[in-house]
């Protein structure tokens, strides 16, 4: 019987989760080890975001368990199929986040706060891929970044990094 923990979101929703799934979060793991996690574990994360976090953790957990149980025989094809499945799942996960940038933003903060390095790294790569190859004006538009430089200041910075602005 798996050990279950109850996580409480900032808007008071309870999520019942297996210990193995949630221990991927170094923050929660530490809370459990310190004995601070009796009863409900209160988290500064909204229920919508927490659901997404758990979706990620369960997928990761699934992946690690299957790899451990794998015997060597016939592993290649299985591994390949499995990698394809994970890729497909991750693509779907990314597409949802790209479409709803608010969730992406909340999830970035949550992965940082919960200390989930794999999720943080995945999300940072996702944002980096969105920015890559774009010129500053496009990036500003994509993320509504307000240019607070005077034209003179902007010109000076561009000149200082001249090598980076060459076509």
């Amino acid at each position, binding site marked *: 019987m798996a050990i279950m923990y109850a996580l409480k979101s900032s808007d008071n929703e309870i999520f019942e989760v297996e210990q193995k799934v949630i221990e991927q979060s170094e923050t929660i793991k530490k809370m459990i080890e310190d004995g601070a996690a009796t009863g409900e574990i209160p988290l500064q994360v909204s229920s919508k975001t927490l659901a997404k976090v758990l979706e990620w953790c369960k997928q990761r957990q699934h992946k690690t368990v299957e790899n451990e149980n794998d015997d060597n025989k016939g592993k290649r094809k299985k591994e390949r199929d499995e990698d394809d499945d994970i890729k497909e799942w991750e693509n779907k996960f990314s597409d949802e986040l790209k479409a709803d940038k608010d969730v992406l933003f909340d999830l970035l903060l949550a992965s940082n706060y919960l200390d989930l390095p794999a999720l943080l790294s995945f999300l*940072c790569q996702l944002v980096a891929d969105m920015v890559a190859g774009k010129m500053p004006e496009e990036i500003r538009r994509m993320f509504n970044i307000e240019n607070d430089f005077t034209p003179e200041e902007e010109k000076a910075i561009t000149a200082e990094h001249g090598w*980076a602005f060459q076509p």
Partner: protein
Amino acid sequence: MMKKARLEFDAKQDEILEDWLSTLPDDILVNIISRLNLDEAARTSVLSSRWKYLWTFITSLDFDDSELLKSVSEDTIVEERASYINWVNKVLELHRGLSVNEFIISFDLDASHGSTITNWIHTAISKRVQKFELNLLPALCWPPPPGIYTFSQECYDNLKSPHGLSCIKNLRSIYFDTVNVTGEILEFFIYNCPYLDELRVGRSDNLLRLKVVGSLTQLKCLDIDCCSNLEELEISCSSLLSFKYYGPKIKYNIKNVPRLDDVAIGGGTEGHGIGAERVLGPIVSYFPQLKTLELHVDVSEENIQFPQCELPQLRHLTFIVSAHHCNSLLGLTRMMNSCPILQKLTLKLEVFNYCKEITRPPFPNDCHRHLKLVELIGFSGHRVELQLAVYFFGTANVLEEMHIEVEPWEYKLDANIHAARRRAEKLEQVLPPRVKLVIN
């Protein structure tokens, strides 16, 4: 009523239009920017005042401009070198981060740029680099006329100081190419960097002897490539997983490598490939534990003598096939009979000239029971290659895929590539129904 709904809708739009990205903590933004290339990273400085200095804390300093080298000529190289050096120096001048995950130099530079390169090494070390690459492979002529850059005594002395020693503690991966570095310096890294798990060295004239011995090292991958003056190599390293050697014939002594399962061996005419006058040396005694093996083979030599061996664990066998003339590749399949569970075979073909007459050595009873994937790289479409492909259709009864990369090794003319592709496509006519043919 309509108006109110409209207002609410606008408010929601405003919310979405918020600049949330800039409100993220610095370390997350630096994490994101570190995943961009250096130009993209530096361009974020102009987004807004919030972003002006963030990029100067990036943890990846990747100065790999080797792509550019493909298009340089004698006329432009001097200017390109000056511009590369300026670029690296400018970025390093602006960079403020105290530690970096990677520091990569990859460009055509030589001994005449010695003091600049030495400064870069100092910077990389003082930023507590984890992955350090210094690849100075020349684009136009070998060896570079002013000589190969030599890892300076000054650098070595600096490493040995207490400060230097504390800075290299995080090193995990080192790659030197076209850098004269001695065995003594490499051993210094091996024995003083507790997390060092990868060491790759190419084209060092000063590497004469190397000893990787003892329980202090955690080294997992060792790769030595074209070090023409190397005489002796001694390895006794229980953590080692992967060993690659390409170069002249040397005296080597390998023992206590219980985890070694990935090996690549090859060399010039006097080297360690397979063929007349060549030996694999003590590696053969580790054949029973190998999962992947790559061998350089010269098939134009008479009598390719494969060692008497068993490779009961081998999953992936690669032959890098060179030949001045070649009338059949089927001889290579002899060694596969020693590999009962082989799943993947890769052939990289570097053949100058195929013979007009091809021979047909009869191997009708061969059966490769586990072979699922065959890759033919450098395919030119000659009958010798087609014969080999057809051989696998007949003998590998669980074959799932054949990958063909069309790229004639010697004459990369469009017409040749086109002809090779057409010949590869003809294989469809004799393809067993279960096999998928992928042509790239």
